[in-house]
């Protein structure tokens, strides 16, 4: 057979990886995003080795010490200390663990629920659709933070319940977006072609609809990783989120809020950490959306 490896498995996989990398390095924002996200993940994993101090050790003598480049700062605490004398840099390094975990896994959880609900209600319509969309409406009618507060109050605070609660309260936006997309795509001829071939509903949903709706999900999801990190900080501030001695960027931020006028570094650096992370995730998401579209390869 003069059929040179058009379809050989490993070769194809390899070229796919190459294609991704090629696209990654062609897009500058994608490269920046990937570098940021990978370095933050590394920081989170190796926090105990990277942090110069224990995050919760109180030093009553050295409270409100400014960062190293300001008058009164020293090399011992590069980003200064907070109102209890704890090292800000160490707290931010440790905080990245919880913040990333909560931010990403609750968005993933909300995304899984939202995508499934959106795909099935959009495709099948009927009673299922009416039921879930009215349910979504009632979720929208209650402010997210209030709903999360009630649920946390019932189930008790904690890391795992926090992720669960944030995931369960945020599925609505994804479900609505995905459903809207599905409603327009399911009328296209390629879906009707699949139906007339006799492809099972499950396969139509996951092999025809899903790849065509996933890019809009990625855009929204990367943006909402940011708002989830903030939401986590608000809940922690209200005492129902992360419990001390666990540290998250949100708790550091809300701790420092009271001293903004006198010691600005308390709230600024965790804020910066959130901003940079979010930016990195958004860049990465943008690039991911591009490579998932076959039209972007030339």
């Amino acid at each position, binding site marked *: 057979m003069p059929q040179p490896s058009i379809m050989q498995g490993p070769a194809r996989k390899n070229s796919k990886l190459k294609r991704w990398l090629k696209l990654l390095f062609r897009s500058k924002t994608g490269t920046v995003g990937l570098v940021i996200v990978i370095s933050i993940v590394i920081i989170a994993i190796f926090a105990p080795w990277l942090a110069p101090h224990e995050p919760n050790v109180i030093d009553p003598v050295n409270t409100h010490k400014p960062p190293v480049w300001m008058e009164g700062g020293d090399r011992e605490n590069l980003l200064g200390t907070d109102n209890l004398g704890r090292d800000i840099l160490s707290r931010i390094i440790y905080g990245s663990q919880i913040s990333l975990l909560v931010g990403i896994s609750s968005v993933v959880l909300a995304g899984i629920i939202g995508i499934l609900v959106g795909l099935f209600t959009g495709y099948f319509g009927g009673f299922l659709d009416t039921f879930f969309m009215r349910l979504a409406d009632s979720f929208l009618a209650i402010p997210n933070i209030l709903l999360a507060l009630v649920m946390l109050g019932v189930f008790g605070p904690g890391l795992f319940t926090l992720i669960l609660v944030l995931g369960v309260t945020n599925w609505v936006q994804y479900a609505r977006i995905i459903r809207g997309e599905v409603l327009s795509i399911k009328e296209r001829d390629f879906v009707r072609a699949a139906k007339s*071939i006799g492809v099972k509903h499950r396969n139509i949903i996951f092999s025809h609809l899903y790849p065509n709706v996933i890019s809009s999900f990625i855009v929204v999801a990367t943006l909402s990783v940011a708002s989830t990190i903030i939401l986590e900080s608000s809940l922690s501030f209200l005492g129902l989120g992360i419990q001390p001695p666990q540290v998250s960027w949100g708790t550091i931020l809300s701790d420092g809020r009271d001293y903004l006028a006198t010691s600005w570094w308390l709230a600024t650096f965790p804020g910066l950490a959130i901003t940079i992370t979010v930016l990195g995730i958004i860049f990465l998401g943008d690039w991911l959306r591009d490579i998932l579209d076959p039209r972007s390869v030339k």
Partner: protein
Amino acid sequence: MSEHPLLEVRGLQKSFDVTKGFFKKEKQYLRAVNDVSFTVQNGEVLGVVGESGCGKSTLGNLIVHLHEPTAGKIVFEGIDMSALSREQLRRQRADIQMIFQDPFSSLNPRKRVFDIIAEPLRTHRDLNKEELQQEVLDLMDLVGLNRSFLNRYPHEFSGGQRQRIGIARAIALRPKLIICDEPVSALDVSIQSQILNLLKKLQKDLQLTYIFIAHGLPAVKHVSDRIAVMYLGKIVEWTTKEELFTNPMHPYTEGLLSAIPIPDPTKRKEQRPLLEGDIPNPVNPPPGCKFHPRCPYKTEICMQVEPEFTDKRAGHFVACHHPLGAEKQAEKKL
């Protein structure tokens, strides 16, 4: 050969609920396909012609079961399709395939050519990887696609090539019946004849049966053995191609025929009976013969009584009170 016709459609109806407004008590229905009956024999090509909105695409969708019929029967190889269970119907679908009008929306933009053509094979047949690839490559040869296109995405192709991919997908399972829903009307004129020739060649080589839907007679003239003319959800004339072109009996068919442009200016007659007006609102069809508001030969009876669809002359079915050429026929007898 079985004694059944391949496809028999009896009294087929499809209505869509178009009631507007929440408080309206009376429901309004659009009768897209209204009491249609015909048969298709194995190996023949039936052309279905009509203006847009006459229900010809709905008819195609009903036959491939993309819509549920409101009333009537579709009998395929002697088996009533409405009596089949869901799983039986799913298997049955392998025998009836469809080629779509718009080659840009009929192919999933996220799938490679290989996956698109392999989808029916994966759904209905159990092939291993090598067999599947061989089968897909054979299909690509059959429809005139270069084998090197296997791993490309649809957006890299022109309309004609995309339509070839759609055709390869439709013939992958060697179906007995293919519905061609205006397969060339979205293509450039220069490509149209290529695709028509391809369809014709495939029909001959694979002994396929087509129902070829089009909005004008020129497109179906090339491929059809028999032609059905539809107007407002009904078939108004059904006969062989030769008979239809030489002896049209329904005034609407005559109008369609005279709308075909004649390329040679010296052969153009001064006045041809062109159709005037538009197709009436199908939600509120006119009483009597549906065509009477536009018919040049209408009389009193046309406005009140709906004509029956009857065999006027050896397999030439017409629904008209005053079929054209009937007088001539009568004169001959005298």
